């Protein structure tokens, strides 16, 4: 909604605080995560079975080669394409890369993407109604459930997101240079419900 955004430079991230409707509890809370290590993992030709075994052995994760989240308490694998995952963990990027290298050796290509995305959790009572304005994927609980992931186009921006729980909460990985524009679109979509932008969000 232009009244919120008219004074905000288009290159700036939405500042922390309340945006849109100000009365009552916020309909949507956006929570940026600054300490998540992220990597892409791409299986070598024919190596998906090997990778799957290694994931089980090294992390206790039953890796799904599908748009799903396979996770344990400290690591998550998000399917983004055949034989391809985004891996996230709350640790230093180098440490994650080292763990993954140890586990998968030359069976996969690994790239550090810890700085490539704004990682953002979205939740709140109006998150469904708000995401319906942005995400062209059916998020009805009968269709999209915790552990489901999707790479898609939001307000003309390519991004990946997955569902964390059935409250529901979602985690978004937004390419860093698109983060300001994404947050502008989010602020517009959430304006009628009220958006609480938590914490400092530096992409």
């Amino acid at each position, binding site marked *: *909604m*232009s*009244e919120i*955004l008219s004074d905000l430079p*288009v*290159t700036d991230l939405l500042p922390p605080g309340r945006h*849109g*409707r100000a009365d009552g509890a916020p309909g949507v809370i956006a929570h940026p995560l600054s300490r998540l290590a992220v990597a*892409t993992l*791409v*299986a*070598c*030709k024919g190596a998906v079975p090997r990778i799957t075994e290694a994931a089980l052995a090294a992390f206790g994760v039953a890796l799904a080669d599908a748009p799903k989240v396979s996770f344990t308490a400290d690591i998550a694998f998000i399917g983004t394409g055949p034989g391809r995952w985004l891996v996230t963990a709350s640790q230093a*990027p*180098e440490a994650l890369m080292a763990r993954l290298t140890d586990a998968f050796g*030359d069976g*996969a*290509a690994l*790239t*550090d*993407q*810890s*700085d*490539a*995305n704004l990682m953002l959790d979205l939740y709140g009572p109006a998150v469904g109604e708000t995401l*319906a*304005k942005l*995400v*062209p*994927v*059916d998020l*009805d609980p*009968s*269709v999209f459930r915790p552990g489901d992931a999707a790479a898609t186009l939001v*307000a*003309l*921006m390519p991004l990946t997101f997955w569902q964390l729980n059935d409250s529901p909460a979602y985690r978004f990985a937004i*390419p*860093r*240079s*698109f983060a*300001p*524009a*994404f947050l*502008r*679109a989010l602020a*517009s*979509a959430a*304006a*009628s419900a*009220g958006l609480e932008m938590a914490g400092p969000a*530096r*992409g």
Partner: protein
Amino acid sequence: MSRLSEGGLIDRSKPLAFSFDGKAMRGYAGDTLASALLANDVRLVGRSFKYHRPRGIFSSGSEEPNALVELRDGARREPNSRATVVELYDGLSAASQNRWPSLDFDIQSVNGLLGPLLGAGFYYKTFMWPAALWEKLYEPLIRRAAGLGRAAEAPDPDSYDRSFAFCDLLVIGGGAAGLMAALTAGRSGARVILADEDFRFGGRILAERAEIDDAPSLAFVERAVAELAALPNVRLLPRTTVFGAYDGGTFGALERVADHLPLPPAFTPRQRYWKIVAKRSLLCAGAIDRPIVFGGNDRPGVMSAQALRTYAVRYAANPGKRAVVFANNGYAWSAAFDAAEAGVDIAAIVDVRPEAPPIQLERAKRRGVRVIQGGQVVATSGRLLSSVTVRSATGEEKIAAEVLAISGGSSPNVGLTSHFGGKPVYRADIAGFVPGACPPGMRVAGAARGDYSLARCLAAGAAEAAEAVSELGFSAYATPVPQARDNAITVTPFWHVPGSRGPAFVDLQNDVTAKDITIAHTEGFRAVELLKRYTTLGMATDQGRTSNVTGLAMMAVLTGQDVGATGTTLFRPPYTPVALGAIAGHHRGKDFRATRPTPTHDWARAQGAVFVEAGLWLRAQYFPRPGETDWLETVNREVTATRTGVGLIDVSTFGKIDIQGPDAGAFLDRVYINTFSTLPVGRARYGVMLREDGIVMDDGTTSRLGERHYLMTTTTANAAKVYQHLEFCLQVLWPELDVQMASVSEQWAQISIAGPQARAVLEQVVDGLDVSNAALPYMGVAQGTVLSGVAARIFRVSFSGELGYEIAVPARQGRRLAEALMAAGAPFGITPYGTEALGVMRIEKGHVSGNELNGQTSARDLGLGRMASTKKDYVGRVLSQRPAFLEEGRVSFVGFKPVNPGDRLRAGAHFLPHGRSGTTANDEGYMTSVAFSPLLGHWIGLGLIARGTERIGESVRAYDPVRGGDIPVEICHPAFVDPEGERLRV
């Protein structure tokens, strides 16, 4: 006031003030603007398109052809709003349009006097003499007279929303059939969306005095809506028009969220555009009354029978003191009886049929309504209708009336069914077109299918919905269908009253008359599409909903074909007109497209940078300092500082593609014209890739980070295109190659430092890495850390021609790196520079860039042909050997300098030999890039000219007529600075 004393679905406890043409009036909540106008005795509402004839209100729905007004004012002015669907709100202001100086007295109504001249096709036959007068005189006059309302003059201040929705069944229309359908599907557990363009569900039930299950039918509506609202799997969308059917079960719909309010409340959009994906759809859009054509059928006071009933019953608004009904069907009789019961004085029912059904005659008798069977209206009179002249077996008779309610039968609202090209089919028994082939997954129920009986609408809505959801695996309950009693309606086709007096209108808005159809027939414009285009029949804002069937039936009569064989024109989206702003939603102004800042954007802004768009990116263009008077002065300073000391620029926008795997080297050999499999680890190489048609696609340096690990850079503009191309090569052309790709463009901030002092600066930020010339030579690559522990990749590459390094760090460290480099470089006068200075230096150096890689140049054209390996195949090799690519006279890439050093060069100038005129035949090429070289003290240029490399030293004309330029330039080697590249290697 013509407000009926009782009844209606208006809330008499909520009076609303509004104005029309500045005159204050009162209405009630639940009114439309049209019903409120009628209740305020306003009968003249608009002017027609061509003849500016006075017009009133014809319909009570979205098909309204006459009562178009400008709603609101200032930046919110909404031209061509149909008064019949504008929901009344407090403070509403509306104005009539297409009139001057006033609605009552419109100068251009003289057009009507020219009617005999202005028949169909008139414009095509005249205004040709003299030719010069068309744009100067005739066309401006025509344009001013045409058009309807006026657009606002300031940006629309309201906001618009977009929303996606998914469902099993989309029910379009919430009348009897739609409500039953939504109930049936909703009870089965299917996800249902019920959309209706009206602000109240119920459809025709709202306007008819009928009973369902022996109770007033309105009770059924209220019960149904309450149940639907309580079902979690049903979404009700009132005020929502489903405007288009698209592929894959996708529908466009427009919800008028706040149009019924004086202003949208804070954070509320004016309208919302829904993109609905439905596995099945059910069209229950009802039907509308169509007019009968006769002389004087357009006077204010002539309206559809359905409209008369709706205004009387639903809105308790009496459209006029006495009403005559003129029809060819029994439905109009019911309308007359309902209106009479609501308090309208029905003077007579005139039916063209010689004998009406006895049951209706009986009802008329009971009510004391006079009936003229076998009668026809042959004339009307009054500026606002005051009387109608009826011809019957007993002769002609003039009946005083302010309202003439007409019905030539019903036209099902088939619009959405033909959005996939399905042709409506004529059904003689109802004298109307019903849906033909529907879009996949679409069914039709109720009046939209030609089933006009209320009982059948209820039953069909339930049955069709049950079948639709059953196909999806839901078990639909055998819901008992409510009972309604109504009689079969008969209709006798009747289109046009022959021998009636005065202009007889077929298309009310566009002023297409019966005579126009005759002209079109005479001149051979007989096919329905030709008829439409020649006469403009059906091209008005109602898209022919009130006129097409009648018009083509009249043509059928003239050609002797039957109506079905004549066919009808197809309805195209949108079903009713849709606001542009609603479809655009949030994507307007600065948010039209995303703006991508670089990792050092904030830092550059703090440095006073001026930014420039590079695709979606914003890049620093130059960094002006106080006292500098123009951009060129700034750029000269930046270039000089870099060439003599050291400069710094963010180059993060280049595409960066991580390529790994055992076959990575072999893969690169196939996509680049040169060889990469032999590149040593720790080295970078410049590469050129072609499209398969032999034209250059992109260039950039690619580094080998490990035995099976490469990092490719692409140009900013082509980053996504190259990535897609590489995926194509890997997945489609050579799936046997074992290569893994990932874009790392967003991961790394990359800053280039260049200039003789670059190494001295670099040494201060690296963590003990040896970056000496020996350890990190030109085109060397090092990995390590900088700034005490930040992972970094250092590439010794150069675009400027100076000793240069590109330092990549994780994106969030970009600003820190820039600041550290500035601090480290301060003793050397390090200077941030932008894309302008970068451009100057690359032109001085003679490097190709986007202006040269324009999709029309080959590697050979650009002087890069020698890079191409002859020992391997690569994409584009074969077709780059075609004759035209090897022609003698083909352009080649060279430099240009002005013969007179003070002359300014301009990119886009064409080259001509001296002494030849500026014609296409003499065109030898064009200047691609220019810059002022502070080093050389004059303008320099790069360009493509025929046989350029053979013509070094020759002088040609740089011909630039669009900017008044025509100067001699000398062809030279493209590298103006350091052609041997010595500076790179120090």
